[in-house]
């Protein structure tokens, strides 16, 4: 099959109504460039709408971060894109093939590491990779060579032990190796580092970067970790309540907030403090979270003093004032009204 070009409207869409805010204007428009495409993708479970209407287009060779809290619809989206779950509506194509009509063509092109390491504890790592390779038509020689090539990712010496004896990190990395066994063009990683220790997380990150850089692999990565999306993704889609609410490169998304963020912890009425700060010149926005104000401004260094003075003049003591660069969490807060972290 061939894909229809991604509508320019997808690329150029600005925030209007319930549609996603697309900050980045560069979205692929030719078939060959699109590795993963979803148009009005929906999935319901009974009365529950897990995915309401997702439009996205991931360029070939791109790392796309799908960021959202638990229950936002990330995993459901991935399961539909991986052919594990039929959409209730809309359509999706992966590697140029429809995920409903051309299931086998999609499956030959994708590697998948789902949220829980999909392993068999009674097999050894080598046996598991062997089963995986044979199911993808690989010969014994190809399987052996491929396993040896995973030396940077997994502890090859440990592969002759049963998987049940592996650490959490090793299990995760073996799961990733199994997803890579048949050299897929497009890799789906569903929260690949959840529950991992920092060292294992860094090894997975390095491998993701290496595969993307050296093999040109397209990587669709879901995560609930802001720093993971920030560190790995070329573009980020923020999903909340089954919809993409913002999309763009991490820098572009952060620029939306303003250049700087002043965090003020206030002793007194935070709402009153917000009113005081909003009246100051050069303040882009103020958000209240408990006793904390997040103040977006173009020039934080210039504004922080004025904020402190204004609060003091209003009889509201700021116990703490911090100036920092915006994070994806600030973006998440802006588009969803809640913090992710």
């Amino acid at each position, binding site marked *: 099959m061939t894909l229809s070009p991604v509508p320019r409207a997808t690329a150029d869409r600005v925030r209007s109504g319930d549609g996603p805010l697309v900050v980045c204007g560069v979205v692929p428009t030719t078939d060959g460039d699109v590795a993963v495409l979803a148009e009005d993708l929906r999935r319901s479970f009974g009365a529950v709408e897990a995915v309401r209407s997702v439009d996205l287009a991931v360029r*070939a060779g791109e790392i796309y971060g799908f960021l959202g809290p638990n229950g936002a619809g990330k995993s459901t989206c991935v399961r539909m894109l991986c052919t594990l779950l039929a959409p209730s509506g809309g359509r999706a194509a992966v590697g*140029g093939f429809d995920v409903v009509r051309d299931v086998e063509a999609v499956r*030959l092109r994708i590697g*998948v590491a*789902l949220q829980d390491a999909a392993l068999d504890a009674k097999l050894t790592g080598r046996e598991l990779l062997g089963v995986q390779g044979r199911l*993808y*038509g690989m010969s014994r020689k190809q399987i052996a060579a491929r396993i040896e090539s995973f030396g940077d990712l997994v502890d090859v010496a440990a592969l002759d032990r049963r998987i049940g004896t592996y650490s959490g990190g090793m299990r995760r990395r073996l799961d990733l190796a199994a997803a890579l066994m048949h050299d897929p*063009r497009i890799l789906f990683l569903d929260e690949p580092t959840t529950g991992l220790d920092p060292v294992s997380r860094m090894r997975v990150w390095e491998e993701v970067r290496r595969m993307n850089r050296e093999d040109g692999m*397209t990587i669709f990565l879901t995560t609930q970790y802001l720093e993971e999306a920030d560190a790995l993704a070329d573009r980020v889609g923020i999903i909340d309540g089954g919809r993409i609410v913002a999309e763009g490169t991490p820098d572009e998304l952060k620029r939306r907030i303003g250049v700087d963020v002043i965090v003020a912890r206030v002793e007194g009425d935070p709402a009153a403090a917000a009113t005081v700060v909003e009246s100051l010149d050069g303040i882009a926005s103020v958000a209240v979270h408990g006793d904390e104000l997040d103040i977006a401004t173009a020039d934080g260094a210039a504004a922080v003093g004025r904020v402190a003075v204004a609060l003091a003049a209003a009889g509201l003591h700021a116990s703490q004032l911090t100036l920092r660069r915006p994070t994806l969490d600030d973006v998440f807060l802006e588009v969803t009204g809640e913090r992710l972290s």
Partner: protein
Amino acid sequence: MTAASAPPTARSAGFLADLSTLAGRAIRLMLRDLEGVIPAMIVPVFFFAVNVGSLQDQFERAAPGFDYKAFQIPVAVIFAVTGVSRASNLVIDIQQGYFDRLTIAPIRRVSLLLGLMIADLVLVMALTVPVLLMGFIAGVGFASGPLGVLAFIVLAGCWGLAFTGFPYAIALRTGSPAAVNSSFILFFPFAFLTTTFAPKEALTGWLGAVATYNPVTYLLEGLRSLVSSGWDAAALGRAALAVLAVGAVSQLLAHAALRGRLTSGRR
């Protein structure tokens, strides 16, 4: 051409290769899980000993020339092979996500079940061997000769395979280990409302009526014919039909449950 749109290096291995890979994995796991097979070896020995010990004299006195041990050997084999399956392991695969990994692979869906069932067939045929050895040691001979022994093992194996569809259907429908374990209850009406303890002529009332419709009655008749009377085409034909009928129902249920799970994408 971009990397994403380039032809894949992977390919479908083909149905037979898929089947061989999945059956090989199931057999390997079965060998690592032998403790799960022990009850299937103890139960038939126990029932054989109790049934023969308590009823042999009574039946052999009432019907001189009747060999009650030969009569009980097929029962012991049915107890050994009925309900033995990898369904619990399938539930573990579902719960741990490994079933998803297999599902995403470019394989024929039916091989997900058939691979397990091949391992089941190997196991149930292997389970008939110690029971038969026990019978030989107890002095039971085969009127149908060595080929009859082979036919006995194959028929018992086919019955075991036919029955596995039920626990697989439950495993796929529920994804619950408890539900799979409770599927053992299906074994009782099949195994006891039949000619387990006495010939059909001795069964009266409701038990006789139920036994007439129980396929195991005809399976036992076929197996007993191989032991006691030689090659009886009519008895073997009825036994084969009984196995086919149960197999058709159970396999339909299992494959419908597989389709349902794959369509719904449930975990």
